[in-house]
């Protein structure tokens, strides 16, 4: 029992609980006087600021609700903006992808125990604020009388609900997730009730790429309702199973799935590959089996603690074989696997240990090989999805695709560059520094144009690099230079004492880096790293300039050129900004959560 009372008070020895004094709850008038009008200057500032805010809100409302705004352009073309020209009869594939995403989200919410209780009275205040804002909008916006009445009625309803909630019992709470589900249900229900994007136009004037007549609500109300049910059901099932599954393993599996799912969705579901089974059985599977078996055996032997110098020699031989394979014609997958095996062999002494550790290392190799073989096979398989244009994805899905691949390539590359730049070996340092400073000195758009226009010209005969792949590599190189600098900042924050302590217990440089330095450095670097992730996500909009059909291109160049929606640029741009903002804002929130979580260990 500690000196100042135990955690559980015992009868007869009740610890005195000292609580800080509670701030007195001010009535509204005094609160206003204290916070908004405490002095003459502050009163003036309050009034001026209020007028400015009012003017901005009025201007914005005037823009949004102006009758000449063509919001139909956005609503009718939602499909175009999300998936560009993906064939409508294959749309179930898109919905399957969305469902997988929602299932993963629900399971993550379960496993990471996201969600908190909100006091009903606190919620009431926010509902009331919403109602008041609604009333304000009703008065300020240039509505028709009819619309004003509807807005007034809805706002009054919201206000009434808020006032009703205010009478809830003091301790009553509601789960934040219940609120999210409630809001989503309302949104889904509104699809059935409100015909968003109602639009009719002369069918024969419609280019093929246009959305078909009708409303967004008609085509999406059923799928969205099913999605909502799937998400809620997954969450409920997950909740029931949660206590029977070890949390740590579940988190690891989920993280891996989050990483693999996009690849599986793109190459299996969305792209619908036309696998040539005869070729797969005769070539791809044998290559995998040979590398898996030989590789695991080699690595299992190399990770013996007493292998010694001969292990390094063997690793170097494999490395030379890997680079040598570029001199003779050979399947690319064999070259990649050879070089990867060499890397695994070189790292083997770092991860050597007892039988269990060695088996785990060999298994890691097998899994990575399986993944790579599958991915390369999938990429090389032609798609059955028949789309006009070069690539089967476009719009928002292309934005997500490029951002995802850029990040999974540039993260490892950035870490390696940062390590090389802080290395004691002059060659690595020089190469990394040169690369980073060179890339950082060039505008991104230059790099993109270079990769889209020039690189295909430099490629040797017979080698073919799709423009999108080339551009993604350009993005990844650019992002990796910035990520490297962020990681380097983290590396420098690891104190000299940590290095010395790791050295003093006999760790090799690579062990020190993997177990001591990098975990601490990456933790420190989370805020700038997430900043870079957000920047990368937004920079995908530069695809517009090199003429790839990303979200911005569709919104800015395609939709406003449709005969029905001439000059709807501003509406579309506002919509696109909202999409970008929602995602960037959520990333930023997630980063704050992550910071709090990993900060737990350090006091």
């Amino acid at each position, binding site marked *: 029992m500690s000196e100042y009372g135990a955690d559980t008070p015992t009868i007869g020895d009740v610890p005195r609980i000292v609580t800080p004094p509670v701030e007195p709850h001010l009535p509204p008038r005094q609160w206003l006087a204290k916070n908004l009008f405490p002095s003459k200057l502050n009163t003036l500032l309050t009034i001026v600021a209020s007028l400015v805010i009012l003017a901005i809100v009025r201007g914005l409302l005037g823009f949004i609700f102006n009758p000449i705004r063509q919001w139909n352009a956005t609503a009718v073309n939602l499909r175009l903006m999300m998936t560009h020209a993906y064939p409508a009869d294959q749309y179930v594939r898109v919905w399957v992808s969305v469902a997988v995403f929602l299932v993963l989200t629900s399971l993550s919410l379960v496993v990471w125990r996201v969600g908190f209780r909100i006091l009903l009275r606190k919620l009431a205040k926010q509902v009331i604020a919403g109602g008041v804002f609604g009333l304000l909008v009703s008065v300020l916006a240039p509505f028709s009388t009819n619309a004003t009445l509807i807005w007034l009625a809805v706002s009054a309803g919201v206000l009434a609900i808020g006032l009703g909630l205010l009478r809830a019992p003091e301790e009553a709470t509601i789960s934040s997730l219940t609120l999210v589900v409630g809001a989503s249900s309302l949104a889904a229900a509104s699809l059935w009730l409100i015909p968003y994007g109602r639009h009719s136009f002369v069918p024969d004037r419609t280019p093929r790429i246009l959305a078909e007549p009708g409303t967004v609500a008609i085509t999406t109300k059923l799928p969205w309702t099913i999605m909502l049910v799937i998400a809620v059901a997954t969450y409920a099932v997950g909740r029931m199973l949660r206590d029977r599954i070890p949390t740590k393993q579940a988190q690891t599996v989920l993280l891996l799935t989050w990483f693999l799912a996009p690849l599986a969705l793109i190459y299996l579901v969305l792209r619908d590959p036309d696998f040539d089974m005869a070729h797969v059985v005769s070539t791809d599977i044998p290559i995998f089996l040979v590398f898996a078996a030989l590789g695991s055996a080699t690595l299992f032997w190399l990770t013996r*603690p007493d292998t010694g110098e001969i292990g390094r020699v063997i690793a170097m031989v494999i490395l030379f074989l890997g680079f040598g394979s570029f001199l003779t014609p050979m399947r690319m997958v064999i070259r990649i696997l050879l070089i990867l095996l060499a890397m695994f062999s070189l790292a083997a002494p*770092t*991860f*050597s*240990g*007892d039988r*269990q*550790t060695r088996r785990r290392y060999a298994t890691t190799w097998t899994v990575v090989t399986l993944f790579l073989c599958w991915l390369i096979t999938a990429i090389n398989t032609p798609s059955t999805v028949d789309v006009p244009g070069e690539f089967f994805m476009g719009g928002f899905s292309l934005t997500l695709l490029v951002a995802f691949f850029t990040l999974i390539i540039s993260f490892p590359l950035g870490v390696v560059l940062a390590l090389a730049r802080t290395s004691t070996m002059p060659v690595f340092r020089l190469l990394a520094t040169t690369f980073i400073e060179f890339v950082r000195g060039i505008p991104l758009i230059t790099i993109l144009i270079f990769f889209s226009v020039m690189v295909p010209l430099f490629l040797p005969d017979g080698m073919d690099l799709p423009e999108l792949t080339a551009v993604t590599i350009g993005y990844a190189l650019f992002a990796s230079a910035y990520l490297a600098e962020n990681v380097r900042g983290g590396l420098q924050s690891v*104190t000299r*004492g*940590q290095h*010395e*302590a*790791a*050295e*003093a*217990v*006999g*760790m*090799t440089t690579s*062990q020190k880096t993997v*177990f*001591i330095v990098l*975990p*601490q450095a990456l*933790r420190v670097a989370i805020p700038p790293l997430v900043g870079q992730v957000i920047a990368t996500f937004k920079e995908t909009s530069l695809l517009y300039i090199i003429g790839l059909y990303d979200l911005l291109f569709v919104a800015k160049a395609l939709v406003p050129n449709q005969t029905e929606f001439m000059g709807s640029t501003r509406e579309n741009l506002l919509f696109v900004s909202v999409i970008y903002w929602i995602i960037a804002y959520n990333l930023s929130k997630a980063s704050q959560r992550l910071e709090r979580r990993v900060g*737990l*260990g*350090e*006091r």
Partner: protein
Amino acid sequence: MNDMDTDARTDAEPPARSERDLSNAADMIVCEEICKWYGDFQALEGVSATIKEQEVVVVLGPSGSGKSTWIRCINRLEQHQEGRIVVDGVELTNDLRNIEKVRSEVGMVFQQFNLFPHLKVRDNVSLAPIWVRKKPKAEAEEQAQALLELVGIPEQADKFPGQLSGGQQQRVAIARALAMEPKIMLFDEPTSALDPEMIKEVLDVMKNLALSGMTMMVVTHEMGFAKEVADRIIFMEEGQIVEVGTPEHFFTNPTEDRTKLFLSQILA
């Protein structure tokens, strides 16, 4: 770790430190005329000493006298530029394998603890045995628990270092060093960063370690510890060894004027 078993230690009283005869013991650390410069400043000016197996040597001296630099040279955290250092028969040169060998046999405890803040206490202790000594994980964790018991904090194994007091952290640091089963332990001012009430718990652990027969080299300002535990005291100033002797000789009858001055200042 059998020779450090808690029960065995309390039974037999070993002879007083200075009465032990270590003349036949093997040489563990041999330093010959080590010199070390930081830029133009010479930190060590020809330090020579031999430390026998099981011997406990305390290094005293005013700040800036080169004590820490010397002790850090012995496991190559600092690089000496002239002279020879031989640790348990292995000479420290630029050969990385020798350095790794010496480091895995020499445990080091730092003034600032330098625990790994992102790892739990148990993992702090078991990490190096698993990856450097290649021990099976279960065995290493069992050993970690036993060592934490030895230093008196078995119940803290699942906490993070940041949640412990300074004295507890330093004891974890000692356990971490012992987990590598070193032949020699180096202590670089282990109690200088601690609050006064925590110094004793760390010194007690060190005392027990000395009694169990560990070869130890301790840089410290704790005169009580030096008097009670040391076989020999080495007094340094300005990068040179000024005087060497038993605690008895050193504290009652020092020969050098500089030593007398130092003692009069700290014992005043």
